[in-house]
């Protein structure tokens, strides 16, 4: 690149980001729909001519990170018939071609300059409804995709700049909310129009060759920088499992089948491999992720948890990442499996497991320590659709978005953000109570931070929230459909001995039971079904998950625990139980009692044995993560220098395992039928009693070897 091009390239880089951001704001402004503006459930991209994504917005990363799948499909299938021409735009919501699920509607437009294809622009917006048997398009009863909203293959809805009325009608007529979908469609068309025109203007000004050259350079430098970051990290294998539950058809509550999302991350040299092939066979309907959803969320997670501070150019980053999956599994569904609820379930499990693996990997490099994040709230946690008759007497179908209020994962140096939502949808917002009460026939009784829901750790996971509402101003009971996960067990994993955040809450109860439920008095709850009705005087309670903690909670600064108790983010009981901190009547730390309690808890971890005191780390030990190092061919505990195993061997066999019921991390002491199938496994250093790892597992599943250093690059991937 010549010297002057160093300046022009920077000008073009800025212009591309500005054009893409302008497309998003144009979309929001022209659409004005509540999902677009209130919850920012949308995103925009600019890609190279071959579809590799160069610019993407900060809204829902998982909607667009792998937009190349859709564009590659168009290039392969449509080049001759119907053709891809200047002024065209293609619409699709087909999850088998690369969209997340049917409600996420993609609209892409080729950019031509002097008759040559130079780039693509595109956007995705979540729609309230795209048809199918149920409002919102998600159904527990689905036996296959034919029981869900029928996906729309790519259609050329704009031809040479003109909207095809027949195709527009075909699209809108499917929906229960055609007027809202029409607003979003107008916004998406306007967004593409402005982005296409400006990329063309860029080509006129600087020449198409230079513009495409800059696109290629941005892709190449993102790939190079990602590889450099990988090269600086130790080789190894990292593994994690997440669980989701799904009940086929009309099986009884409590008979949910358990689906496992299993990933082995292997880092060798400059290459990252994400192997999902150990995941469960696919379900008949709803929860499966299509390959597009897997690719989008996997890449979005790699951007967030590996590429912090690097250019977020997904089409370049992807070159350093290989995804391995088995068709016919819950993470890579085979037609005609249903996929409509993927975004409420499997994609978040994919993100959570990858997050944990990548953040373990980053811990080895002290310069990347600041980017280490435990898992945020995993699922939509109680999220779902409501339908019925509104205050105006007309039918309604809508969402509250109350689930966008879970905790963030702790970092290696700070507590996780309280009630701050998902990492992969960073721009999404929770909706005001007054806004929801304006449009839904409900009255909120409570919206509060949920004490003890943040995963305990040296740094605490962010707390989730609890929301309670009751019908108000409707003549009929409200139908409530939940697609929340994580009721039977927690999901938001901790790191480095930090514990998971609390699981989700979902309940429909009589109004007089609310106080008991909030007090943790053991109100009886059941798993959601597809036919729950919220009648007059009843209360609907949803709780969002807390984020995972970082580090052993017994190493948390007692003053920080006291502050959390004063802020009601941790209960007094929680302080003693989870952190070993004893407070006096005014909330001050009793230092001696705290020390004694922590000593006692450590003794309990060792089955009554007195733990060894901390030892300085031997010189020459090479940190593998926050807690383990490789020294003299062995994996050692960094707190007491105890040798756990030979490097490359499974060091988990040397750790003490304590299995605890999941109830310990259940919000408000709630117990869902089926929870007895899960446990939380705590792993302790056998010498100093430090908590080395905490895993959520189905009882009977083998212990996951979560991290395995490969000093010589030769060890096999971990099994078990």
């Amino acid at each position: 690149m010549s010297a002057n091009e160093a300046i022009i390239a920077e000008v073009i880089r800025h212009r591309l980001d500005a054009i893409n951001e302008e497309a998003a704001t144009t979309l929001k402004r022209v659409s004005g729909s509540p999902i677009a503006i209130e919850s920012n459930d949308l995103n925009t991209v600019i890609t190279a001519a071959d579809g590799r994504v160069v610019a993407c917005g900060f809204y829902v990363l998982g909607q667009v990170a792998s937009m190349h799948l859709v564009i590659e499909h168009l290039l392969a299938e449509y080049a001759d018939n119907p053709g891809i021409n200047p002024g065209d735009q293609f619409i699709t919501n087909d999850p088998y071609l690369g969209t997340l699920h049917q409600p996420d509607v993609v609209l892409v437009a080729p950019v031509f300059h002097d008759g040559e294809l130079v780039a693509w622009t595109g956007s995705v917006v979540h729609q309230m409804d795209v048809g199918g048997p149920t409002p919102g398009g998600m159904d527990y009863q689905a036996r296959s995709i034919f029981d869900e909203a029928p996906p729309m293959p790519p259609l050329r809805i704009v031809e040479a700049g003109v909207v095809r009325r027949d195709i527009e009608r075909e699209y809108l007529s499917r929906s229960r909310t055609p007027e809202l979908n029409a607003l979003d469609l107008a916004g998406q068309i306007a967004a593409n129009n402005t982005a296409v025109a400006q990329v063309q203007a860029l080509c006129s000004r600087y020449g198409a060759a230079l513009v495409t050259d800059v696109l290629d350079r941005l892709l190449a430098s993102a790939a190079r920088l990602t590889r450099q970051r990988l090269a600086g990290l130790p080789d190894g294998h990292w593994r994690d499992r997440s669980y989701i539950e799904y009940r086929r058809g009309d099986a009884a509550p409590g008979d949910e089948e358990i689906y496992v999302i299993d990933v082995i991350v292997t880092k060798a040299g400059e290459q990252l491999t994400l192997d999902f092939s150990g995941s469960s066979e696919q379900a008949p309907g709803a929860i499966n992720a299509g390959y597009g959803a897997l690719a989008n969320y996997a890449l979005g997670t790699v951007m967030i948890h590996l590429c912090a501070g690097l250019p977020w150019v997904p089409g370049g980053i992807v070159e350093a990442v290989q995804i391995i999956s088995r068709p016919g599994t819950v993470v890579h569904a085979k037609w005609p499996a249903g996929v409509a609820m993927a975004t409420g379930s499997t994609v978040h499990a994919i993100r959570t497991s990858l997050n944990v693996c990548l953040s373990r990997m980053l811990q080895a490099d002290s310069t990347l320590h600041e980017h280490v994040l435990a898992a945020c709230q995993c699922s939509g946690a109680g999220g779902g659709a409501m339908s019925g008759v509104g205050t105006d007497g007309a039918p309604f179908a809508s969402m509250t978005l109350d689930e966008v209020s879970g905790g963030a994962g702790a970092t290696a140096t700070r507590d996780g953000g309280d009630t701050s939502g998902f990492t992969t949808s960073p721009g999404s917002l929770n909706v005001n109570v007054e806004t929801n009460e304006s449009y839904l026939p409900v009255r909120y009784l409570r919206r509060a931070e949920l004490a003890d829901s943040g995963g305990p750790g040296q740094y605490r996971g962010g707390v989730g929230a609890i929301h309670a509402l009751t019908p108000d101003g409707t003549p009929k009971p409200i139908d409530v459909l939940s697609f929340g996960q994580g009721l039977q067990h927690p999901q938001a994993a901790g790191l480095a001995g930090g514990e998971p955040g609390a699981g989700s809450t979902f309940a429909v109860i009589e109004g007089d039971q609310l106080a008991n439920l909030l007090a943790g008095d053991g109100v009886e709850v059941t798993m959601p079904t597809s036919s729950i009705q919220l009648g007059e005087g009843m209360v609907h309670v949803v709780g969002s998950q807390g984020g995972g903690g970082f580090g052993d909670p017994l190493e948390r600064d007692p003053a920080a625990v006291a502050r959390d108790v004063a802020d009601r983010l941790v209960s007094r009981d929680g302080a003693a139980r989870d952190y070993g901190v004893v407070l006096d009547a005014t909330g001050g730390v009793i230092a001696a009692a705290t020390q004694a309690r922590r000593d006692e808890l450590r003794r309990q971890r060792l089955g009554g044995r007195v733990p060894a005191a901390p030892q300085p780390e031997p010189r020459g030990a090479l940190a593998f993560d926050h807690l383990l190092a490789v020294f003299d061919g062995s994996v050692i505990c960094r707190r007491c220098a105890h040798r756990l195993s030979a490097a490359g061997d499974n060091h988990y066999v040397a750790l003490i395992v304590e299995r605890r019921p999941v109830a310990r991390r259940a919000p408000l002491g709630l117990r869902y039928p089926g929870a007895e199938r899960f446990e939380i496994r705590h792993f302790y250093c056998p010498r100093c009693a430090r908590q080395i790892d905490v895993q959520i597992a189905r009882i009977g599943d083998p212990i996951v070897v979560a991290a395995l250093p490969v000093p010589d690059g030769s060890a096999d991937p971990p099994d078990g």
Partner: protein
Amino acid sequence: MSALSLASTWPARATFAGVQVVGVDAGGTFTDTVVIGADGSVAVGKALSVPAAPEQGVLDSLRAAAQARGETLAELLATTDVLAHGTTVGLNALLTGKGAAVGLLTTAGFEATLPMARANKLHGLSSEDLRIPSKWAKPDLLVPRQRIVGLDERVTRDGTVAVALDVDGVARAAQRLVTAGANSFAVALLWSPANPEHERLVAEQLRTIAPGVHVSLSSELAPRIGEYERTTTVVVDAFVAPLVADYLGRLEKVLADHGFGGRLVIMRMGGGVQSVSTARRMPVSTLQSGPIGGVIAAQQMGARLGHRHVVTSDVGGTSFDVGLVIDGAVQLALQPRIERQPLAMPVVDVTSIGIGGGSIAWIDASLGVLRVGPQSAGADPGPACYGRGGSEPTLTDAAVVLGYVARLGPQLDLDIDAARRAVAGVAGPLGLSVADAAEGIVAIASEQMRQLIRRTVLERGHDPGDFVLAVFGGAGAQYAARYATELGVAAVVVPRFAAEFSAFGAATCELRASAERDLPPGSPEQRVDELNALFGELAEVAAGQLGEQPSVSTRRTVAMRYFRQTTRIDLAVDQLSVDQLPALRAEFHRRYEAVVGPGTSRPETPVEVVGAAVHVSAGALAPPTQARARTADIEPGERIVVFGGIEHRTAVLDWDSLADDWTGVGPAIIESPRTTVVIPPGISARLDGEGNIWMDAR
């Protein structure tokens, strides 16, 4: 109270010809003064701001203006009828986190509204932090959880009381907050816009228990539906209240001590100025002033010169601000935020990015490109050319290297060698000459400025060709010709008082007040009677804020939007009746397209009424300004200026001595004591009758 209460009844007329008005805008670095004499003559003054005692900077600046008029500070103040002031005291309290210990009272069960912050961890972050997820965080929590108390009460969406307020509970809560150290109160109860009675009862209790302590009520300050934004508005208000009140008291005193007997008025974020007593009652309204003064001055200039659409640009030391005038009206922000805190009140829409004269250029080795910002050398040490120890190359240094700037203003000497050395630091590694690197720095900064202007105009669906680009601030005119390139605006204008434009806007804007309230969304047909009653109520509130000065114009607006949309459009109405509604709907569709963009209205989608407002104005304060008085001829100078890598012998003209009908073609430099206008080769320029400089845009 001192001289203040003796002061100044308003001149008993609706227009203010014959009145001497002074505008003083205190910015981060400089405090600017513009004096508009009773005869329409204009004088300006400038002084360094004094952050620890801003009133001192105000006095210094006033003294400089007095000197320019050949009089003493006391003489200037004695003849001044109105002093209009924009202050950053409230904003600084927010920036530094050093505000009041606020106690927040809210509806029981919803105490978490503020800390939950609608889960916003991203909006308002810098573009760099957006790519570092461990830095995603909510806006600063201005009230710790221990000072947030829930009250037993509940109002529902139609204003019905579902749970009556426990008045004794209020007393207990207030006592608890006082014990916890609260020295300022904010009250935000659910649905208070629909029924403010509970908030009023709470205020009564608070005033009994803690007399003299500031109380912000959301139903008064921000009666909009949406409890989070209403809460942040009262919290920010209560947070800055004691500091702002204290400052206004000190300012009134020093002005009175120096013989000021006129009326002090304060800039408001929603446009116009307000009385000191209103500013004390809602200090949040003073948070932004400088950028808003500039937009108002541009709007007035557009009105005088016949330009209905104006886009404004202001290059500061660390930021670049863009504002819009559409159809002759200053635009309000749809979702205003200050320091990431959302505000549920009218705020003039000014969009900023962190690029300015102090932005540092650096080589991004990973991308192999030259970058400018977001780091800034700030005011201290400032750019290398300030000669105060700065060594990193800034945008200002690049302008110095290219020969754009030959002086920095009264209190600074220019160190050209230091600028060259600094720019050489990035030129060398890139294999560029120092001049080429400087060109590159200006090009990259200009690109960022251009993109912000383009987006601001295009996002609203407008054609830049319909707009005049107004350029002000001390440095804007150095780069305007660069960043106007390829924008497609109709013309570029540098106003005669570009360097003090914000203070000019403060002096010339209207005394205004407004009151508004949201209604639960509903069809216009259902709301006619309610709206008419509401207009009466709001008019009283607004008139009360205006004080003794009678209003000369009243504007009633009704806020409408498409069903469930968030983009609301304010439509001017008179008394409402059902038969006017079809016309009102038609006007809604028309205005919607004007604001959102052609072809975007959807007549088949239902329209709902969501609120109403009454705006009153007592008219502009200052008399029309005199035509410029051309000074004696000054022989044009000459210096070498680099354009497009080529050194040009360039004429240097004195702005004040240009002929009234001057026209010319670049390359040329036009200088005034405070501004330098750079006219690149081939660009034609002219002076207009007011003394503004116009450039062709390419």
